[in-house]
C-alpha cells in the first residue's frame, strides 16, 4: 500500500509545552480556557476550530494570500501553463467547480483542457486512466470523496495495477484524482466521508491529504508530477477557512518525507488532514508532533523514532476507527517499538457508524477526546 497522508502535528505557540496535534487550524484551540469552551457552544455551521496559518515563507518565491481552494486553483493554473498535455475534467469543473477550485481556468486555457464530463464517476476515472495512458497529464475531479465508490473498480483494479500487470509496458502515472474530503459541519453521511483507508490498502496508488493551502499546492503539484496514479483528498472544511501566504509559482513538497514539527519527550501525536483539532492541554508534558506529508509506510520511520523516545502514541482520524489507517500505524509501531511503549497506543477516531448529521459534534474525534486519551496515556 502506499498512501500518502498529510499528517500534521502543529507546534503550539506560546507557553504550552505541548505541541499541537494535527493541522494548523488547531493552534488556537490550545488555549483551553473558558473562552475557548464557549466558542465550542457556537452556533451550527461555525467550524469547531480556527485555522492557524503557517508563518510566511520565501522558500518558494513570492507569495499571495490564498485560501485552500485558491491554492488548488493556483496549482492547476501552474500545471496548465507549463504542461500542454494537461487536462482537467469532472462534474461541473467548467464553470469553476462546486468548491470553486477551477474558477477561471476554462477561460484562460480553453474548453478542450478544462471540461465537464457526464455525471459518472466510473467514467471520469476510466477516462482519466485512458488519457493518462495515452500520454496526457490527466487531472480528474470527483465531486465529493463520498461519491468515489462507483470508480473503485477503475481505481483499484485498473489504475493501481496498470504498470504492474503490463510488466511496465503501460502505466497511468500521469493520472491524479482530486476529491473533497472529510467533515464540514453539516455534511452528514454523503458529504463528510474520509475514505482513505479503502485506498491505502491497495498497492499501486498514492493517497495524499494536505493540511493547509501551502501544503496543498505543493503536494498537489507533487502528485501531478509523480509518475504513479495519485488520489488527492482535499479537506473541504478548509477550502475557505484556511488562509495563508502561498507561493504564486510552482513548487513541490515531497510526498514521502516526514517532517517533525516540534520535538517533545512525552507523547507522539499523529493525525492528517483536518484532524489536528485536538490537542492536549496538559501543560506539564511536552509532546512530539509528527508531521506526515505522506501515508507511505516508509515515512513511519520518523514515527518510530519519535515513539522510541516518547513511549506514547496517539493517532487520530475522522474515519471510523475499525479498519481505519490508525490501525495500520498502530500495528506497525507496536512491531517496531514494542519495548519502548509505556502505554497502549491510543486511537481517537470516528465511531463505527455512518457519518451522522445532527450528531456530528458528538461523532467527531475532537480535542476533548484527544485530551482525555492523552491524560489516560500519561497516567497509564
Amino acid at each position, binding site marked *: 500500500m*502506499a498512501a500518502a497522508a498529510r499528517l500534521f502535528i502543529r507546534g503550539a505557540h506560546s507557553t504550552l509545552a505541548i505541541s499541537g496535534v494535527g493541522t494548523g487550524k488547531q493552534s488556537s484551540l490550545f488555549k483551553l480556557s473558558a473562552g475557548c469552551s464557549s466558542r465550542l457552544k457556537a452556533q451550527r455551521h461555525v467550524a469547531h476550530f480556527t485555522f492557524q496559518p503557517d508563518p510566511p515563507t520565501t522558500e518558494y518565491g513570492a507569495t499571495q494570500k490564498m485560501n485552500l481552494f485558491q491554492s488548488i486553483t493556483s496549482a492547476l493554473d501552474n500545471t496548465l501553463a507549463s504542461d500542454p*498535455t494537461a*487536462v482537467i475534467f469532472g462534474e461541473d469543473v467548467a464553470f469553476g467547480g462546486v468548491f470553486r477550485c477551477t474558477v477561471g481556468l476554462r477561460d484562460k486555457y480553453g474548453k*478542450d483542457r478544462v*471540461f465537464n*464530463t*457526464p455525471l*459518472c464517476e*466510473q*467514467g471520469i*476515472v*476510466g*477516462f*482519466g*486512466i*485512458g*488519457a*493518462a*495512458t*495515452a*500520454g*496526457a497529464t*490527466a487531472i480528474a475531479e470527483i465531486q465529493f470523496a463520498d461519491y468515489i465508490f*462507483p470508480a473503485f*473498480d*477503475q481505481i483499484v*483494479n*485498473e489504475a493501481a*495495477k*496498470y*504498470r*504492474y*500487470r*503490463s*510488466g*511496465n*509496458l*503501460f*502505466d497511468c*502515472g500521469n493520472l491524479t484524482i482530486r476529491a473533497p474530503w472529510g467533515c464540514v459541519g453539516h455534511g452528514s453521511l454523503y458529504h463528510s466521508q474520509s475514505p482513505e483507508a479503502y485506498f491505502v490498502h491497495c*498497492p*499501486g496508488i*498514492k493517497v495524499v491529504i494536505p493540511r493547509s493551502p501551502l501544503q496543498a499546492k505543493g503536494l498537489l503539484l507533487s502528485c501531478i508530477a509523480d*509518475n*504513479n496514479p495519485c488520489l488527492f483528498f482535499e479537506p473541504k472544511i478548509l477550502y475557505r477557512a484556511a488562509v495563508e501566504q502561498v507561493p504564486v509559482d510552482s513548487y513541490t513538497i515531497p510526498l*514521502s518525507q516526514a517532517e517533525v514539527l516540534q520535538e517533545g519527550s512525552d507523547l507522539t501525536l499523529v493525525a492528517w488532514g483536518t484532524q489536528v483539532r485536538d490537542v492536549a492541554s496538559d501543560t506539564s508534558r511536552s509532546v512530539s508532533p509528527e508531521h506526515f506529508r505522506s501515508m*507511505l*509506510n*516508509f515515512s513511519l*520511520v520518523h514515527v518510530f523514532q519519535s515513539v522510541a523516545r516518547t513511549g506514547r502514541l496517539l493517532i487520530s482520524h475522522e474515519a471510523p476507527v475499525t479498519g481505519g489507517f490508525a490501525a495500520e500505524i498502530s500495528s506497525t509501531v507496536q512491531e517496531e517499538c514494542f519495548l519502548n511503549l509505556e502505554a497502549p497506543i491510543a486511537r481517537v477516531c470516528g465511531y463505527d457508524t455512518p457519518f451522522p448529521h445532527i450528531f456530528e459534534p458528538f461523532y467527531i474525534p475532537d480535542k476533548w477526546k484527544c485530551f482525555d486519551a492523552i491524560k489516560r496515556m500519561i497516567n497509564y
Partner: protein
Amino acid sequence: RHSLCAAVQQQQQPFDSSLEKPQFPGASAEFVDRLEFIQPNVISGIPVYRVMDRQGNIINPSEDPQLSKETVLNFYQKMTLLNTMDRILYESQRQGRISFYMTNYGEEGTHIGSAAALESNDLVFGQYREAGVLMYRGFPLDLFMAQCYANADDLGKGRQMPVHYGCKDLHFVTISSPLATQIPQAAGAAYALKRENMNRAVICYFGEGAASEGDAHAGFNFSATLECPLIFFCRNNGYAISTPTNEQYRGDGIAARGPGYGMLSIRVDGNDVFAVYNATKEARRRAVAENQPFLIEAMTYRIGHHSTSDDSSAYRSVDEVNYWDKQDHPISRLRHYMTARGWWSEDDERSWRNQSRKTVMEAFEKAERRLKPNPELLFTDVYQEMNPTLAKQRESLFRHIQQYKEHYPLDLYEK
C-alpha cells in the same frame, strides 16, 4: 370593472397552440398530442451489412474492397495461424502445460478484418478475445507463448494469467480481466490523441456481455459528449460464458444503443472479413476526420468454449456449434473467395497448414523449455520506484526462501 374585463378580452388574440414549440433544454423535438409509446424494434432490427455470401461470393461488387491477392492471402494466413495456435495452446492447457487458455474459434474474421483497416499506430484496447489483432500487427508466436507460459521472455514479466497480452510497440494495451473497464479508458485515450492531433484513432473491443457493464454506458456517453476519435467494436458472439443473448439484453443488440448516445452505428456480419474491413475502415476515417465515435456491432458466433474452464455442452447443443463450424465460418468463407479466383489451391492449403503448425510447435517447445522470471519481479513495477516498505518485504521473502528453499520451486525460475 365591467369595462376593464371587456378591454382585457379585446386584447386577447386568437391562440393557435400548434405553433408552440418545446423549449426544453434537454431535447429538441416537436410536440405530439397522441399518447403512444415508441416500440423497440427487435423483430426486424438493424440490418446486418455483408459483402460476401456464405460461399464467399461478392454480392454487391461496388462493396468489394478489391484488396490485392497478397493482402487477402495475408488475411487468410493470419486467421489460420491464429486457429492453429489456438488448437495447440488449448491442448497444452488440457495437458497441464499452461494454466489457462481462451480460444478465438469462429471470430478470426472480426480480428483480422478490423486490424487490417487500422493504421499500425492506432491504439487498441481489447477485452480478451482479440489475439488475432495482435497477430495481424506482427506480434511473434514466441511472445504469445511466453505470455501463456509466463516465462522469462514474457513482456508482462509473468504477472498475469494466459491470454492477457500487451505490446507497447504494437500499440496494444495490456489486457486485464475485469470486463468493460477498457471502454471508458479508450474514450480518454482517444481524447488525448485528438489533442495530440497526429491522426491516430483508438479502437475498443468488447463482447456483447461486457456491453452490459456500467463502464460500457460510461464509455459510450463520454466518447460522444467529448467528441472522441474512437471505434467501439462489439463482438456479439451469442454467449457470455453460458448466458445467451436473450438473457443479456432485451433490446436490438448493441448497435441499437448507439443512437441513444448520439453515436453513428452499424451492424455487420462478423464472419465476413471484407464487411468487417469496410466498416472499420470507413469508421476509422470518419472518426478521425470528424472527431466522433463509431459503434460497430460484429455479429458472429463463439465456436469454442468460453475458456479452458468451461464445457459449453452444458448449455448449448453440439449441433448448434457444428452449424457455425461447418456452414458459416470466416476462414472457410475467405478460402472460397480465394479459390474462386485461383489464388489458393489444395496444395497451398496443405503446405501452409503444415508450415504454420511447424512454426507454432517450434515456438511452443521453446517457450516450454524457458525458465520463469526471477522472483524479484514479484516486487517491481508496483510503483515506478521501489519504496522502502516493499524492499523490506522483498528482503523478508528472500531470507525466508534461503532458509526453506527446498519447499519452493526455485529451479523453475531464473536466478
